[in-house]
């Protein structure tokens, strides 16, 4: 059923210079170590993205400790290490957007924009500056090749696959991208780290968004927009029929599919099914109301040739979800409409739609809205 069987990727040769993005975690440490072992001319670079919580000692990345870990791993591997200050770029491309999306009642994924703009654009400039032919990261995704074209594939470890966050990067970057650990499991990565004696081998995994170390995204919104931002003001909980059933303390605290913090007494569990920023309303409903049979996404980006209208693809609307079969109903340069073969729960505006062909990442977009009913293909206009 898959169109393409990708071949092995073109990989860096002995002596090629590779810039490795190093967060200070075990994954990127091992990525660097493997490239050093292959005889590449490896340069480690840690991005300083924000000042928030730089002094929180246990933060897995972006803290002083994380930067020191990256530096010490590089020293151990005998390679140079640099820190690049991307605070301004990250603030503009990622942080501001994060806050604005919440203000619009959506649920953004800052990691996607960080990959698109910061890691694979700003950092690529650094690679150019140091004549590095390649850019490597510690993502659990793989590179492959279809004909002469580099393509991105899912990571082999299904539980760790991070391709969902990588759909937005510029297609030409693929020719320079190396993903050394995408063929491994996390356990294998840690084993390799131990074999190299890397201090990051047992380091805990980062789960939170890097600039929200305490998990309190509302604090970040408050700091950027002020406590009087509409998204943080009280508003009504409503049912689909318009009945007001309570008051919430700011729609930015809610996301589609959320159960926590909703009024009770309905017999069945209730979920957030819609956020209407203009009325500061949070609409709640039963589980069935969460089901979507189609969706529209915008801000499309393709890592391989875009599929044709009418073709069947696999899609994911959240990280680590099972891929769902879907049909491309309508596609133009900026937006796509999909019909889902099976309904999906809690399709959230602001999250990513990623479109796969088997393991190949075809591309993706930002979800504009879920559709209760599957969209149908427009009939061609009969002219006559």
């Amino acid at each position, binding site marked *: 059923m898959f169109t393409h069987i990708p071949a092995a990727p073109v990989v860096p040769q002995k002596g090629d210079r590779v810039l490795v993005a190093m967060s200070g975690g075990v994954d990127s440490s091992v990525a660097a170590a493997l490239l050093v072992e292959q005889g590449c001319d490896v340069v480690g670079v840690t991005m300083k993205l924000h000042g928030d919580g730089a002094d929180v000692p246990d933060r897995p990345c972006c803290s*002083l400790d994380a930067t020191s870990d990256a530096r010490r791993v590089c020293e151990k591997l005998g390679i140079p290490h640099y820190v690049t*200050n991307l605070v301004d770029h990250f603030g503009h491309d990622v942080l501001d957007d994060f806050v604005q999306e919440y203000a619009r009642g959506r649920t953004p994924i800052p990691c996607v924009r960080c990959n698109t703009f910061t890691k694979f654009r700003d950092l690529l400039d650094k690679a150019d500056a140091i004549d590095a032919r390649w850019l490597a990261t510690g993502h659990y995704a793989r590179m492959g090749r279809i004909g002469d074209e580099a393509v991105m594939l899912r990571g082999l470890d299904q539980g760790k696959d991070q391709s969902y966050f990588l759909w937005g990067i510029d297609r030409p970057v693929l020719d320079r991208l190396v993903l050394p650990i995408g063929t491994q499991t996390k356990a294998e990565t840690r084993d390799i780290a131990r074999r190299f004696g890397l201090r990051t081998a047992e380091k805990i995994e980062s789960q939170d968004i890097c600039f929200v170390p305490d998990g309190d995204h509302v604090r970040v919104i408050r700091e950027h927009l002020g406590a009087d931002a509409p998204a943080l003001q009280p508003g009504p909980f409503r049912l689909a029929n318009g009945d007001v059933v309570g008051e919430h303390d700011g729609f930015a605290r809610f996301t589609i599919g959320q159960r926590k913090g909703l009024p009770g007494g309905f017999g069945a569990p209730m979920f957030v099914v819609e956020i209407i920023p203009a009325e500061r309303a949070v609409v709640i409903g039963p589980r069935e109301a969460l089901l979507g049979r189609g969706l529209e996404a915008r801000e499309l980006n393709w890592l391989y040739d875009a599929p044709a209208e009418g073709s069947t693809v696999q899609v994911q609307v959240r990280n680590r979800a099972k891929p769902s079969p879907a049909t491309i109903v309508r596609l133009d340069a900026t937006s796509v409409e999909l019909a889902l073969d099976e309904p999906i729960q809690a399709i959230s505006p602001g999250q990513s739609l990623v479109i796969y062909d088997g393991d190949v990442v075809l591309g993706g977009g930002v979800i504009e809205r879920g559709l209760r009913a599957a969209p149908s293909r427009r009939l061609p206009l009969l002219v006559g």
Partner: protein
Amino acid sequence: MSHSPVYLDHAATTPVRDEVMAAMTPFFGPRFGNPSSVHRWGREARVALDEARERLAACLGAQPDEVCFTSGGTEGDNFAILGVFRTLKAQGRLAAITTPIEHKAVLAAVHHVVHEGGEERIVRVSGDGLVERAHFGELLDDRVAIASVMWVNNEVGVIQDIPALAAQAKAAGAVFHTDGVQAFGKVTVDARTQPFDLLTISGHKIGAPKGIGALYIRRDTPLEPLAHGGSQERGRRPGTENVAFAIGLATAAELVLAEHDAEQARLLSLRAALEGGLRDRIPGVVIHGANAPRAAHVVNVSIPGASSESLLMALDLRGIACSAGSACQSGSVSASHVLSAMGVSNELANAALRLSLGCLSTPECITRTVDVLATLAEKSRGVKSAPAFETVEF
């Protein structure tokens, strides 16, 4: 092609000189005593410390009791500014004056004065980084406790007229401090003829180890200690003295003064070659502070269209060490506050490098650096050239 590494960051730090190492070594081993002890080990250490103080005092034109050993530049600057402010606060002198182009140690100490109920006043500097004397005069009223002006700027090398500024401040009844970390050994420093009250110096800029410095304190300067404890350093800086390092500092200071004329002439000629080479080979290159008196060892240059951070990486990968702006704790670089204060545009400030010369600098270093910078400048102008992969033999 293989090249020797090039160290052009002497304003950041210098290697400990062999003579300094040799002078210090006995005090880590056989002569390890505590100068406060009454026994022979203690006496020996005390005598050695007193001698070191005398020798350093002679280098500064000072009396031995006017020399207080410290841990280095940051401690000296804080001690001077906060020590004077805290003493004179009771007399209604609540303001501290400084320039916007100081080292962070001075800027932060002066700013801290605000948290203790004082007032910070920042004097304007010209495009070449020189203090505007008229404005300095306006700020110097009878509420000023202390004025602090850096003698030789660490980022651009600009030399202020410290004797004149000190006289101006003292005429207004203020205490005058100068951060002389980059000045000592490069310009004439003489407490007998120059009226500064306090002068900070640091060992590791002149071939002594990191972790030793001194504050010159003119007699009768009102100065409260930062730390409280024993009677060491006349109670001004309690804590067991770092005898070995104090001896190292005195030895390095004597050497740097003995070699001053020859070394400054050598550095001036290297600087001329460096600046000349950069001007010839890089269109639009800007050398900051070029029209002001400058110390021989610092060149701050902007390469239009380039980024400091990328240049530092590319230079390091070719074995050339220099610096840019002020490094934060993580090691990332942000644009220099000194260049911004001098009115340099953000774009140029973000394209600046500080190259600082010293004992490890040779004509070959300069030639190599000019060649590499010319290549990198071409690249940042979009002139395509084959990437040069070179090895550096350390």
